[in-house]
């Protein structure tokens, strides 16, 4: 499938993939871990970008889907399942949850939808914390093992990074493919003007539900990789604040733009770690201490002046030049 890319563009994609694959060779475990986290979060970011960026459905429950996927895979693996069976199972559970959360979206929009999905996130988080018999409550699920693939253990950091990179590449390809199909255009139509979309024969009910189900699927699969990557899960990374962080990452990167999640997640996850790592003069110290403030201001500035995010900004500057 060409996805509308020229040969040169395909070569560029390939070059970036090779560069990413070679990047960890110069890094130690910390760097490889951060890169793996980036890959996993980008997959979840694609999901939210589909739901929110392309289909226009505000979701403040993305961390909950991410958590459901993580818990489902971790608990199934601990119950003796193979990871490669637990992965689709976690995805399926998330699709089901996504459909359920999608129903309010048929009735309400914008702020009200934000509230409904926010409620879902709080509910899921309380479930993770309080149902100790299943999730381990505050003590979490420990010693989550990493899977093997074709008889090769992915336990090593580099091996698991390549698994995460492969997942990210596959998820990115699937997203690009989806966006090139009539589905992608239907999502955009739904976002821009639901009434016009319906008058053109698009079943907005089905597409709204699908937007949530698909977003949840991406988050669930990413969560399923997150659990063995960290090796331990407790309720904290699936709190509402992380749903907000997901949303901000998508907005900063550029909502409704294919490369938005790559950039937004990098700003969210890699940038603070990089700032932490460099020691230097007063300027660096200021950057370290004011990072969160800067990030917040950036999000606000983006929403007001540049709804297209950093990618939109780049495009704007290029047009002006």
């Amino acid at each position: 499938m060409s996805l509308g890319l020229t040969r040169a563009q395909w070569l560029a994609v390939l070059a970036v993939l090779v560069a990413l694959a070679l990047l960890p060779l110069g890094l130690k475990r910390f760097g490889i871990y951060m890169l793996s986290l980036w890959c996993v979060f980008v997959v979840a970011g694609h999901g939210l970008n589909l739901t929110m960026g392309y289909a226009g459905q505000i979701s403040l429950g993305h961390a909950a889907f991410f958590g459901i996927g993580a818990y489902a895979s971790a608990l199934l693996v601990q119950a003796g399942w193979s990871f490669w069976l637990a992965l689709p199972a976690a995805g399926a559970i998330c699709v089901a949850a996504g459909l359920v959360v999608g129903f309010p979206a048929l009735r309400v929009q914008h702020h009200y939808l934000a509230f409904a999905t926010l409620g879902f996130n709080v509910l899921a988080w309380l479930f993770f914390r309080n149902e100790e018999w299943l999730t381990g409550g505050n003590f979490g699920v420990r010693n989550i093992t990493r899977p093997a693939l074709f008889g090769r253990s992915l336990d090593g950091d580099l091996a698991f990074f390549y698994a995460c990179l492969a997942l990210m590449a596959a998820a990115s390809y699937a997203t690009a493919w989806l966006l090139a199909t009539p589905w992608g255009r239907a999502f955009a139509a739904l976002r821009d003007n639901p009434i016009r979309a319906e008058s053109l024969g698009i079943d907005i009910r089905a597409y709204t539900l699908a937007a949530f189900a698909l977003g949840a699927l991406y988050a669930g699969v990413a969560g399923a990789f997150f659990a063995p990557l960290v090796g331990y899960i407790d309720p904290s990374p699936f709190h509402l604040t992380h749903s907000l962080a997901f949303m901000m990452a998508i907005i900063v990167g550029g909502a409704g733009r294919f490369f938005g999640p790559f950039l937004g997640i990098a700003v969210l996850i890699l940038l603070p770690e990089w700032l932490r790592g460099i020691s230097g003069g007063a300027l660096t110290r200021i950057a370290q201490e004011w990072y969160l403030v800067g990030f917040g201001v950036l999000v606000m500035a983006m929403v007001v002046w540049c709804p297209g995010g950093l990618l939109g900004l780049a495009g704007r500057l290029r047009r002006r030049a």
Partner: protein
Amino acid sequence: MRTRAYAASLVLALAAAPAAAQQTVKLFSIVELSGPGTTAGTNFKNGVELAVKEVNAAGGILGRRIATETYDTQTNPQTAKALAQKAVDSEAFAVMGPVFSGSIMVSMAETRRAGVPNFTGGEAAGITLQGNPYVFRTSFSQATGMPKLANYLASGLKVKSVAIVWVNNDFGKGGRDQMTKELAARNIKVAADVSTDQGQVDFAAAVLRAKQANADALFVYLNEDESARILRELRKQGYDRPIVGETTIMGQKVIDLAGEAANGVRGHVGLTIDAPNPAIRAFGAKFEKEYNYKSDHNGIKGYFAVFALKAATEKAGKLDRKAVAQALKNACYKTAEHPGLLMDVCFDDKGDIDRESFLVEVKGGKQVVVETLPPLSKR
């Protein structure tokens, strides 16, 4: 164009590589400097830094200077794990912290894998139950502290029923479970079992429930910041039964924040700068001079950790991580040889410690030691 720019930024983002220094003992503090654990983490870090300064002034460990680096976990277990990896990558000789139990539970897998001794301020019982040969406590586990407090409730205060208010995180839940068990063993009824959230601000409902339970005493088991808030609320609602706690609620930071409302609180603490012990008093004075505030138990933990590392390294006779971890197993260290330890201490085979502890009461904005309890092994 777009892709290239982003790839370039990524390469840049990961290019920072720490330089290695050979002649120093590298110590990494991985502590809570922001988020709900800020009070605990900051005290612990300051304790570590004060001790390092003293050790370096006296010639270091086996003639080598200690170099410290400090990272902030944001009270987030995943960040703590990443930072522990970073410390390992930078060839840490030992890691100090994190203090919060949830964080050390995750990060200690990294130091274990690399064989780096890791001192923690965490008190959850589970930390030393994983068979990790590289993790060492700097304070009692809940499995040690709770029985001592339950004894006090049963024979000291002679109560028949207790209301429990606890924080619903791994620290609070672990302590509450342990205490419930200890109370049942002493035929003390739990009249109310009130769970609260980490970072909770309003304790009106929790205090009301505790009051309505009409128990003989109230056991509060929260982190520092929340402890201060509930004490103010208890005073506001005129709670008049004994308020007891384990370590956190009698902390100096809590007393500072709660003000007058902290008076009358009593309970068991493993460490306090008001202990009737000249070495601890001297530490308290030095700490206050250095940082302009009074240390709580976490400051002592951090200080102790550095001297425990020094004592074990000197016993091992070489800068060898494995030998140092070995030297901390089933070993006792005396203040006569290692004054920085502040109190005689014994480590068991799991990394748990045993030493004297104290029953205290808050009077006039200060912890007052009512009784010194002997180490468990001496009873």
